[in-house]
């Protein structure tokens, strides 16, 4: 970790957003490359997002900028005057939404470039603070009402050095939650029907990789429905509630829950592959209909959105 001499240099203001570099190592370890410079320019210049999206076809552009990302949590009733810790904020796909619902949002992002993108993108959000650095290095002097792990848990093994990195990561996070605070996790279901149907695994790009349990794991893991419940229990989270964003948690149009599961005909044809090419082994909608008939939708939903609580 590299500390700078002048305290003032470690805090940058973009608009009214505070960017905190105290815990920044000086190197961006995670990057989508040149595209992030493009994104930075887009948000800096206030370019019309609708126009940008209309003219591009790169997944990175869609996944970082599409308003459809908000659907994941748009509907959720955050407690008034709450504080939110967004871990792995990326380019801020959901950060704006969180700012709209919370008294204070602290977004942690490993990469300086991405932090800048967030800063410029939400430069008028006075309740936003961005901390650049690795969560484990960052000393937070407060606990939060909500912590979000949107597409983050699967990487825990990469930045948690332990025998059971996912559990230990969750335990570590739990410490940053207020009592009764809510942990929000969005993650792909390793048994998502789209994977059976031939969609490539989102993180490794390999067909059937999650179904086969990532035989050549590179520190990536997703979980099945029960597996995830067990994991959360092992970290002492309780009141676990599952939601099923369809077709996935990144670009959802419908959010189902245990208490409102899809009916026959309610799931669209095939999971859209905005990110990479795919195989189509069968008609997912028909298989979903069969699964629904057999009460197995929850096991085969493409993504999970999980809420759970810190009860001591």
């Amino acid at each position: 970790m590299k500390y700078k001499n002048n305290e003032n240099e470690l805090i940058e203001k973009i608009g009214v957003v505070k960017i905190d570099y105290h815990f920044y190592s000086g190197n961006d370890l995670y990057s989508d490359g040149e595209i992030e410079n493009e994104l930075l320019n887009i948000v800096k210049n206030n370019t019309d997002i609708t126009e940008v999206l209309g003219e591009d076809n790169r997944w990175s552009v869609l996944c970082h900028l599409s308003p459809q990302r908000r659907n994941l949590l748009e509907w959720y009733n955050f407690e008034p005057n709450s504080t939110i810790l967004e871990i792995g904020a990326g380019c801020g796909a959901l950060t704006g939404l969180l700012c709209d619902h919370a008294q204070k949002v602290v977004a942690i992002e490993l990469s300086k470039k991405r932090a800048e993108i967030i800063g410029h993108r939400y430069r008028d959000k006075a309740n936003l603070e961005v901390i650049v650095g690795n969560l484990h290095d960052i000393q937070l002097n407060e606990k939060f009402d909500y912590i979000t792990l949107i597409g983050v848990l699967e990487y825990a093994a990469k930045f948690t050095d332990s025998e059971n990195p996912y559990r230990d990561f969750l335990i570590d996070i739990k410490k940053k939650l207020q009592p009764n605070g809510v942990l929000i996790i969005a993650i792909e279901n390793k048994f998502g029907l789209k994977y059976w149907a031939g969609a490539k695994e989102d993180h490794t790009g390999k067909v059937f990789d999650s179904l086969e349990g990532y035989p050549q794991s590179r520190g990536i893991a997703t979980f099945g429905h029960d597996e995830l419940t067990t994991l959360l229990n092992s970290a002492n989270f309780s009141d676990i509630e599952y939601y099923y964003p369809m077709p996935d948690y990144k670009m959802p149009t419908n959010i189902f829950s245990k208490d409102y599961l899809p009916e026959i005909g309610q799931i669209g044809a095939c999971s859209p592959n905005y990110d990479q090419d795919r195989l189509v082994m069968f008609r997912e909608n028909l298989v979903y209909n069969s699964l629904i008939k057999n009460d197995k939708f929850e096991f085969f939903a493409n993504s999970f959105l999980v809420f759970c609580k810190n009860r001591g």
Partner: protein
Amino acid sequence: MKILYAKYNRERLPEFQIETTIYQSNGEKNVKKRATTVQAGKHIKKIYENYLLLQTEYQSIHIATASMQNNEVIFEYIQGQSFDQYLAKALVQRDKKEFLNIIQRYAILLNNIGKTTLVGIKQPFGLNIELDVMKCLNVANIDLTFDNIFIDEKGCYSIIDYEWVFEMMPINFILYRSIYIMHHKYCDYFTGFIGLSEIYDFLEMSQEQIEIFKTLEDGFQQYVHGSDQLYMTAVNYLKESDSLADIYRESKRLPEVLAWGNSLDEILKDKEEKNNELLAWGNSLDETIKNKDQRISELAIWGNSLDETLQKCQATYTYKLQCKYDKLRDHIMSTSFMKILLLSNKNNLHKAFNKMRKGEISSLFKKAYQRVSFEVADHHTINDDQQDEQLYAHEQEALVSIVIPVYNNSQYLEKCITSALSQTYINVEVIVVDDCSTDERVYSILDSFATNTRFRWTKNATNSGISATMNNGIIASQGQWIAFLDCDDWLDVEAVEKLMGRIYAKSGSVYGYTDRVNAYEATDVMEIESFKCRPTENYFSELLIGMYTSHLKIIHKDVFSRIGLHESRFDGAQDYDIALKTAYHFGDSAFCYLPEPMYYHRIHNKQTTNESAEKIENIVDAIKNEARQRLNIQQGNVDKLVSFVIISFDKKDMTLQCVQAIGATVKVPYEIIIFDNASSPDTVEFIKEYVEILDKVQVFYSDKNLGCAGGRRQAIKMAKGDYIINLDNDIIVTPNWLEELIVRADSDAQIAAVCCKTIFPDGSIQFNGAQFAIKDGFISFSLINSGERDTNVATALWHDCDWVPGGATLFKGDIVAQLEYSTGYVNAFEDNDISLQIAAMGHKMVNCPSAKVYHHHVMFNQKQADTEQKYIQARYNTSGFIKSLVTFYQRNNLIIADQYVHELMDMDQLSHAEVKSKVQKLAEDQLHADKG
């Protein structure tokens, strides 16, 4: 409160983007709709208003209750099953009867749901379609899709959604789109069950209606999503999908592909083998080449040693003795010995002759024998032998003149001349022209050869350059064939024989050339330069690339008569000019190539041609440019206009021939201006009928004869050309004449006029340029080469002229504009006056030996002259001549010393002083007459 379900539609226009959630609170479920954009707030309000409206409009059906709270609409959550669920069940069970029953129920429900009219709304969704004569709901919830109507246990219907309510929409449209949407949702189940059209048929919807509804639905979709679907962008990001069916199909092709792949492997293997073979062969070739190079260098060394040996041999007393002996033997054999042999025994001779034919007697003997045989034939001694005569006839050696221009370089001269005189070809003469060498040894060497009857030499009056020197040699030569030899080079003894043999063998050849040996003085290296690689066709274009027909070359004298002799302005590359001109005028058949090195070209640092490389380069460029210009003019690729000005007086047939000859030889843009000098009516009629109708011909008919000068004066004013060419109507032009004339004119900006080489039909020259001499106030004009034969090569010289006769001459258009054509000239001397004007302007006039025209002049043919008395009278009327002479005197203060005119004026017997006073008197009278 717990949210159970959420749904979004961000692909819509922002004003319609809303969120629908189902939530549970205190055990009760509700549905909530709220805006996800600021703009959509209105839409939420509209939904609540729709609720209020439908409550009053739709009597027989329950409308899910709604309330408005904090800009959100809260709906009652309806329990039960939707039409959609019933239909889906029937679909999955493939129960068509049940399926259609449900549809039927739904249709009945719609038809009775509210008040209707037969008038649809104008321009629904801004579309230009007619909805009249369709049953329309006054208040139409067009989104009454199957999943938006629920049926409870009691069979009561409830509408759960009323987002899209419009005025006066056809009931069948609602039916149409409900079915359409359901089909889209369950399309996989419809396959093999029921088709869309069957359902529409069942509902008695016409195709016409369906088309309208399709348009209406598109209009509605545009209303919701916008015409450019700005917010439906995600679909553009979809990447490629390969279905299992595709992969299966591909895999079926796999064996085929594999087979192809295998055959490809086979081919690749073959290719590799072939490559290796080629490589091996290539390597062996390298080896061979290496051996070859080695062998060549060995042979070169051996060759050099041979040269040395030969030189040593030649230097020996024995060799010299042998030569002397051979000469003596030849002499004896050609005279007494053979005669004695012949006279003593004719039969013996025949024996010897037969032996010779069998190749048993040396070639020298053969020559000697034949020479004797000629003499014998002259004496009619053995002229009865036909077979032998054919053989003699074969042996006719034309005289070849070897021309050697000399300037200094005396150290090489002896070898040069000796090589020319030692030719095995007997009938040669050697002509040396000295260009005023400063090296005195040159003259002693030349004198040393003086006793040789086949040797002559002359000396230029002044140092004149290579072209003039060679021309003098050619003019001095007696042979029809000219071989060119430079004074520092030498010939192989068989050079002329071999090349002439080749020339004879190829009939039509007029330009023979050979390979050569470059002898480097500094290094003693002899290097054969062969032109085997240069084509023996398309000489013109090949020569334009570069010269290669240079040493040895033998050219027929007629070539120079045709193309002109060497031009001094090309000194240094004059032979290149000759080669190009030969190729241009004679074509490929002129050339004949002997691929043997017959000429030793010495390369040393005292070259006779002392022009700098840069200067020669410029000259070569000029030569090439003129060659191309010739071709362009011949082909008409020149955007200059040529005006032909023809004075016509009777001789109607000649006028026609004259014009036709121009048409046949000229392709550049041109005009022909004919000035008819009051010809007889039948001539005028003829010209009108046969000449005036020709392309590019204008004829002006004068009602009185203005004389030759007057006519030309009038006609030339009409000419618009860049070049103006005066022609008498009895002049017939020849092929290529025009390009020769124009190239000559353009070769020097100073040149204002070029006169043709004008030849009478009998081949004698009328003029080839002209000159004058001034003495004591008298000027005498004369024609150059007048009366000489055209074939006399001396008349092929290029030279400046003091004046140019007006009859067959090119003038540059811009010069003509500056000239004054005096009205005082009637039938003579206007061309003399014009020439003096041109000279006074500082311009030049020149001849052009290669631009030949034939003048069918009346004076040439006395018989013709007699039959055209009238012409004579008009052309040579006395008063006209006198007036012209006086005018010339008035304008130039010179009396023309013309014997003929002086006779007409009775002045031929007078002294100069008397003539002067008479002319002065006449001039005063004329001046007086003009004023009067």
